[in-house]
C-alpha cells in the first residue's frame, strides 16, 4: 500500500470510528506541485487525500480556528510540523487530547522552482519519491524520467534535522534516515561578516521588496497571538505606508516576536511571494540565543521554557554592564 492509500485508509477509519470529528490532510490539485490543505468531516471525502513530495503546508496552524468548532482533530504531520505542534502545546493554544497526530516520515520535499529552472515544469504531470530519486511523469512520449532527489529538494529540506515526527499517535510508514545536507547557519555567518553599512544595504535590497501581505506571519506556527500587534489600529505599531522603514520595522519585529519560539521550519520564507530570505533573520536570532544562553531548539520539548521567557542571574549580557 502506498502512502496515499495509507493516508486515505487512516482518515476514513478515524472518521468512521468517530475517533476525531475532523481530519486535516493534504489533497491534490490541478498541477503536480499543488497540495492544498484538505479538511474532512466525512469518511467519504478521504479519497481526496493525496501524498506527494509537495505536502509542504504545516497543518498545525489550522488547529487554532478549527478546534473552536471541533472536539478533536486528527492531522497528518511531518517532522517539522510536529515542532509546530509542540509550540502550540507549549503556548497552551491547543490541548494534546484534542489532537490525534498521524506522523508522516519525510525524506524531503520537492521544489517546483528548481524543477522549473531545470526545464521540467511544462508537461510535468507528477513527481514521486523513490529512494534517492524523484520519478518525473512527463507528458508525451518519454513517459517517465528519474532524477536525483537531492538536486530538487527545497532548500529548507536540505537543512532539515528532524525528518521524522517528534510527537505522534501513529506513524505511517517507516522512519527515514536523512542526514542534514547543508549547514543552515552558513548564510547567517556570511551576512554577519559584511561591514555594517553593507549589511544595511543587503537588507535594504531584500526588505524593500516586502509587500506586507503577511503571508510569513500567517503561515507561522509560532505566530499564534489572538490579536497580532500588526493588526492593531490604536495604537498602530506599524504604519501602512509602503516605505522601507515600515517594512524594516515589520520584518525586524516579526522575527523578534518569534525569538526563541521559531521552529526553523522555513515556512515563512517558502510562503514569501517576494523571495525575501526571512530565515536568515530568524536563524540569526537562533544563533545568538544559543551563543548567549545555551543550545536551544524550539518545538522539541513542549514542557520547557523558551529562552526569552526565563533568565539566570549569572546570564551574560550583549552590552556593556560597567
Amino acid at each position, binding site marked *: 500500500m502506498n502512502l496515499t492509500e495509507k493516508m486515505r485508509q487512516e482518515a476514513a477509519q478515524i472518521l468512521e470510528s468517530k475517533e476525531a470529528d475532523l481530519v486535516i490532510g493534504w489533497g491534490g*490539485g*490541478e*498541477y503536480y506541485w*499543488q*497540495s*492544498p*490543505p*484538505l*479538511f474532512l468531516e466525512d469518511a467519504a471525502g478521504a479519497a481526496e487525500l493525496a501524498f506527494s513530495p509537495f505536502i509542504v*503546508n504545516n497543518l498545525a*496552524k*489550522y488547529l487554532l480556528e*478549527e478546534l473552536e468548532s471541533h472536539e478533536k482533530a486528527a492531522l497528518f504531520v511531518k517532522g517539522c510540523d510536529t515542532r509546530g505542534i509542540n509550540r502550540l502545546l507549549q503556548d497552551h493554544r491547543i490541548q494534546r487530547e484534542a489532537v490525534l497526530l498521524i506522523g508522516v516520515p519525510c525524506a524531503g520535499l520537492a521544489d517546483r*522552482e528548481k524543477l522549473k529552472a531545470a526545464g521540467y*515544469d*511544462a508537461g510535468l504531470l507528477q513527481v514521486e519519491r523513490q529512494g534517492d530519486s524523484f520519478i518525473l511523469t512527463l507528458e508525451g512520449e518519454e513517459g517517465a524520467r528519474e532524477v536525483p532527489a537531492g538536486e530538487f529538494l527545497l532548500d529548507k529540506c536540505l537543512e532539515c534535522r528532524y525528518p521524522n515526527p517528534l510527537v505522534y499517535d501513529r506513524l505511517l510508514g517507516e522512519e527515514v534516515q536523512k542526514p542534514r545536507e547543508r549547514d543552515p547557519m552558513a548564510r547567517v555567518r556570511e551576512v554577519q561578516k559584511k561591514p555594517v553599512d553593507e549589511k544595511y544595504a543587503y537588507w535594504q*535590497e*531584500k526588505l524593500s*521588496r516586502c*509587500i*506586507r*501581505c*503577511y*503571508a510569513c*506571519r*500567517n*503561515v507561522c506556527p509560532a505566530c499564534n497571538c489572538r490579536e497580532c500587534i500588526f*493588526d492593531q*489600529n490604536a495604537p498602530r505599531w506599524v*504604519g*501602512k*505606508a*509602503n*516605505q522601507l522603514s515600515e517594512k524594516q520595522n515589520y520584518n525586524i519585529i516579526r522575527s523578534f516576536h518569534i525569538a526563541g519560539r521559531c521552529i526553523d521550519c522555513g*515556512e515563512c520564507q*517558502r*510562503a514569501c*511571494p*517576494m*523571495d525575501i530570505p526571512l530565515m536568515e533573520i530568524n536563524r540569526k536570532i537562533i544563533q545568538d540565543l544559543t551563543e548567549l544562553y545555551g543550545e536551544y531548539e524550539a518545538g522539541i520539548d513542549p514542557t520547557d521554557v523558551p529562552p526569552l521567557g526565563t533568565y539566570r542571574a549569572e546570564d551574560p549580557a550583549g552590552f556593556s554592564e560597567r
Partner: protein
Amino acid sequence: MKKIDKSKLEDLWGRLAAEQDLFLPVQQDSVVNFALWQEGSRVNLEAVNSLLPPKDLLFPQSEKIFSYKRREGELSFEEAPGSGPQVIFGIRPCDVRSIELLDPVFFKEPADTFYKNRREQTTLVSIGCLEPDTTCFCTAFGIQPLDAEGADVMLYDMGTAYLVSPRTEKGEKLAEEMGELLEEAAGAEEEGLQQQQEAAASAQEHGLDLDGVFEKLNDMFDHCIWEKFYRRCLACGTCTYLCPTCHCFDIQDDGSPEEGQRFRCWDSCMYEDYTHMGHGHNPRPGRRERVRNRFMHKLNYFPKDHDGVYHCVGCGRCVQKCPVNLDIMQVIEEIGKEGVGGEGHDR
C-alpha cells in the same frame, strides 16, 4: 512594418529614459519586477510575467494625497504634485487588459485624479507571449497572448529583433522617439509574424470554461462551495497584492498634529481590519465571508456592473504564489460544475 534589433535595446532605453520615466522588468535575486530603468539595470524581457503586476505604476502601493500643516490654528492642505510622462516597456497582454479593467473603476465619476493623470501620461509598450507559463490562462478571458488590444505599441519577438507596431497616437509618438534605431523589417520577418499569429490562432484555448459562471454565481452566495475553499485560506494578502486587477485601498494619516501627510495605500479584502467598524461590527467577520467576497467580486459583482466582463485576466500570479494553493481556476471549475438551483444551494 518596422523592427528594432535586440542589440539596440540599451540605446533605445537610454533614449526613452531621457524623455520620460521608463519602467521595465528588472531582475533582482529570483524576482522580476517593473523598475525604473537605469544604466546597468538587469532587464529581463524573457520572464513571461513580472512577479508584481505593473499596476503599481498607475496605482502605487502607497501614494501621498496631500500634506497638511497646522500653523497658529490654521489648517491647510497641499495636494501632492502630479507625476510626469512614463513608458511601461515590456508589459504583457494580460496586464494590459488588467489596466483596461482598472480604468472604469478609477475613471468612474467622480474620477480618481491621481490614477487618471498617470494613466493619461502612460505609454504601454507590450510584448506578446510566445510561450505562456503553465499557470497562464488568459485565453479563457479572450485575451490573445500575442496581441494586446490596449497597447500603444506592440512588440513581436522575432528572435534577434522585435517587430514594432504602434497602435495609437501615443504609440506613434514613441516610435518617432525611437527614430533611426528602427529599421524596415524584412519580408521574412513579417512572414514569421504571420506564422506566429496563425499558430496562436489555431492553438487550443485554455480548457477553463467560464460559460455561465457569472450567471450561476447570482444564486450561489449561500452555496456550500465556499466551505470547501475558505478553510485552507491563511488570510494573507498575497493573492490581492499580486493581482493586477485588485484595487482596494485604505486612506491613512501619518504625522504630528502640526504637520504630516495623508496617503492612500493598497489594502486587502482578505484582512479582518478591512471591513471592521469602529463600534465593533464586521459584515465580513471570517475567512469564509472574505474569501467568498473576493471570488464573487472577480466573477460576479464586477461583471454585473461591467457588461459581464470578469475582473480577472488569467495571469496566474495568485495560482503560483498562494501558499496553500487556493486556485481560482479550481474555483471557477467547481462553480461550472454546479447546476443552477442544484444541490448545495442551501448550506
